[in-house]
């Protein structure tokens, strides 16, 4: 274990050594809570910055670039603006619930981080039912959304809230089914145990893992109301859905909950399917050496470029050979790749309609999730080539069948007449 890998663990141990032995467990808890509560707003703020920058690039724009270098202070300026904005509560609204709803939505979003293994030995609370805890806590958010929509006394809010509840409840089913396969193979409900079970092979590199991971990620996007599943806050239809009537800091809290949950969805997809904090099974320096060979062989590049590229890659290989990349960097790197995918989807796709969205959950993802459990069983029961082939076959056939059954009238290409 390199010192860099255990940097934060050692740091917290050093800090705790200042406390008397009796107070240490309590100090430990307080420290972890403090770190989470401090990190969560920072993650949220810079997620907004990342999202705005990436989407701006996709749309031929610059994005925020006025406040600070590359607009890096923009989130802070936005936060300040939100703080000093007037808080408007509609007449006839239930003031208490109107206030409680955004808080109830942020708290579970932060609580989710408690069972997230950020790196080797870096988990705030290693519960033996971590996975159940994740699903239990993440579903509290739908109560908050419905409370907020109801308390606003606005028709748009109510419509948004009803959509949201229907959507979150529907998508929880395929999400849980996709993770059942993980529980079966890993044999534990603890998130740390699940990550450790992927030391040799990430679950994503199995047939059932690909399907399960995609189902889980898609359901997660739907649960956090992101495009193309952003029905509850469909801007062009429902103004802003359940948070139409919110302003100022309460609005910021809704946003914070949404972004933290997006982060959590990406992070848990990484944990359950993409190997958590594990590096790829191939040592990274071999990858760098391979790249060096490729760059060196690239005949279309200029000689100096090739030389520099090869030297750089060799240096990287030596660096990574001597000092492996810390586990927490792996975790965050994978999570941010998924977040990029999330933003990419948002910049690309239009929104589905509510009935199409429900159809996707109940007619396609749910049966596929059930078959995925069978596929995982086949994969685990039979030895390597047979099991993998059987499980891949089961998934491909059933996915094809589901598409055929659900799509009795496929979209036909149109013909257009050209009249004179």
């Amino acid at each position, binding site marked *: 274990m390199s010192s860099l890998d255990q940097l934060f663990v050692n740091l917290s141990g050093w800090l705790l050594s200042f406390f008397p032995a009796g107070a240490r467990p309590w100090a430990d808890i307080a420290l972890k809570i403090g770190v989470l509560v401090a990190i969560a707003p920072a993650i949220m703020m810079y997620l907004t910055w990342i999202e705005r920058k990436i989407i701006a690039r996709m749309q*031929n724009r610059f994005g925020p670039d006025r406040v600070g270098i590359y607009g890096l202070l923009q989130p802070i300026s936005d936060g300040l603006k939100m703080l000093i904005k007037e808080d408007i509560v509609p007449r006839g609204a239930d003031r208490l619930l109107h206030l409680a709803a955004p808080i109830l939505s942020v708290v579970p979003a932060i609580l989710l981080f408690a069972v997230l293994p950020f790196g080797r030995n870096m988990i705030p609370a290693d519960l033996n039912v971590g996975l159940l805890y994740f699903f239990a806590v993440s579903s509290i958010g739908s109560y908050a959304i419905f409370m907020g929509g109801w308390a606003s006394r606005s028709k748009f809010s109510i419509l948004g809230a009803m959509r949201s509840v229907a959507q979150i409840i529907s998508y929880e089913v395929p999400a849980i089914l996709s993770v059942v396969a993980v529980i079966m193979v890993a044999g534990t409900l603890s998130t740390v145990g699940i990550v450790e079970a992927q030391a040799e092979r990430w679950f994503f590199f199995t047939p059932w893992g690909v399907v399960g991971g995609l189902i889980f990620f898609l359901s997660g996007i739907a649960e956090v109301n992101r495009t193309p599943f952003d029905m509850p806050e469909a801007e062009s239809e429902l103004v802003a859905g359940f948070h139409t009537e919110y302003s100022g800091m309460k609005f910021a809290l809704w946003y914070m909950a949404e972004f933290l949950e997006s982060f959590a969805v990406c992070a848990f997809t990484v944990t359950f399917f993409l190997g958590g904090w594990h590096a790829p099974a191939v040592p990274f320096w071999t990858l760098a050496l391979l790249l060096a060979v490729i760059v060196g062989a690239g005949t279309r590049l200029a000689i100096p470029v090739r030389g520099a590229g090869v030297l750089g890659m060799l240096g990287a290989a030596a660096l990574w050979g001597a000092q492996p990349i810390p586990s927490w960097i792996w975790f965050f790197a994978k999570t941010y790749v998924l977040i990029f995918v999330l933003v990419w989807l948002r910049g690309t796709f239009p929104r589905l309609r509510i009935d199409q969205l429900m159809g996707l959950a109940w007619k396609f993802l749910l049966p596929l999730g059930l078959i995925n459990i069978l596929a995982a069983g086949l994969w685990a029961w039979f030895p390597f080539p047979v099991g993998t082939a059987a499980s891949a076959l089961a998934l491909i056939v059933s996915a094809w069948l589901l598409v055929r059954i659900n799509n009795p009238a496929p979209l036909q290409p149109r013909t257009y007449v050209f009249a004179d």
Partner: protein
Amino acid sequence: MELKTSISPTIETQQLEVNLGPQHPSTHGVFRMIATLDGERIVKLKPVMGYLHRNHEQIGERATYIASFPFTDRLDYFCAMSNNFGLALAIEKLGGIQASERGEYLRVIMAELTRLVNHTAVIGFLLNDMGAFGTPLLYAFREREKILDLFEAASGSRMMCNYVRPGGVREDVPEGWLERAREIVNAFPRFLDEFEALLTENEIVQQRCQHVGVLSKELAMNASITGPMLRASGVNYDIRKVDGYSIYPRFTFKIPLGTVGDVYDRYYVRILEMRESVNILQQALKEIPDSSASPAISPKGLALVKAPRTFRPPRGEAYGRIEAPKGELGFYLVSDGSSQPYRYHVRAPSFINLTVLEDMCLGYKVADVIIILGSIDIVMGEVDR
């Protein structure tokens, strides 16, 4: 219209009346729809207009014929050039003015460029209504900006152009303008290909648009719908062909027609129309006579522009109409022999196309209403006048 509720009859349900607008992100201005919902389904929809009424026609009767031109810019503020063109045609008919050759070409070029501007923007907004986070819109606006630069070079203004006049255009285009226009027009099909590659085959776009908001051929004709909306329903009616006004008969172009009449057809007919517009533009930019051979405005038109009060057309009426990007844009003028029109009326395509909104929306979901409205292509400045 009675619609069966989808929920079991033992549960008592209520219908919800929602005001979509006048302050709403996707009603394209201050338009209001009073929608009665059963769950998510529309059972009744009442459009309310008039929030942007500003007495356009009355103002036209209190001003000289020429003084109305800047006001027509504000009708459909995406298509100022073609609005000017319509009024110019009506005045020419009334006063018996012949347009100069170069003027005719310039007007047609401007009108077709306007069609490109309008259709790109409409498709961008339609996708925005569908929930795409602005990306198609900004792609469309990138192209639109280039054409607006052309307008600015010719008329001095990007959107409120005030450029076309009876007898031709206000001023000849600056030097090098035609080359720039050729470059932009020739590059346009590439943009359309890219745009189509992203949208036409997109599964979500197809699922959202196909068989949504179907407008039957009969209803479209009975409600006197015009423009791409009518042609998407499969009716071959394009005023450029039917009337053959200006110099359109000289160009070869086709009229794309849809088959189903749904939102998808309205989207795709517009794409095809843009391709045909590029076709017309390329021909016009090739054949346009040199400014030494023909002035940009005919002498009679110039006299009228220089001294608007002296223009007293004989008693009578004239109806000038063009195929504006949104449909048939007509200007009806009645002259009592004075220098001001006795009656000035605008037949606004947005307004008349909007009349079938409820028939198209009934039975669909809230989300569909928004894209159906987007596919009609309205501009409130023209609806309310």
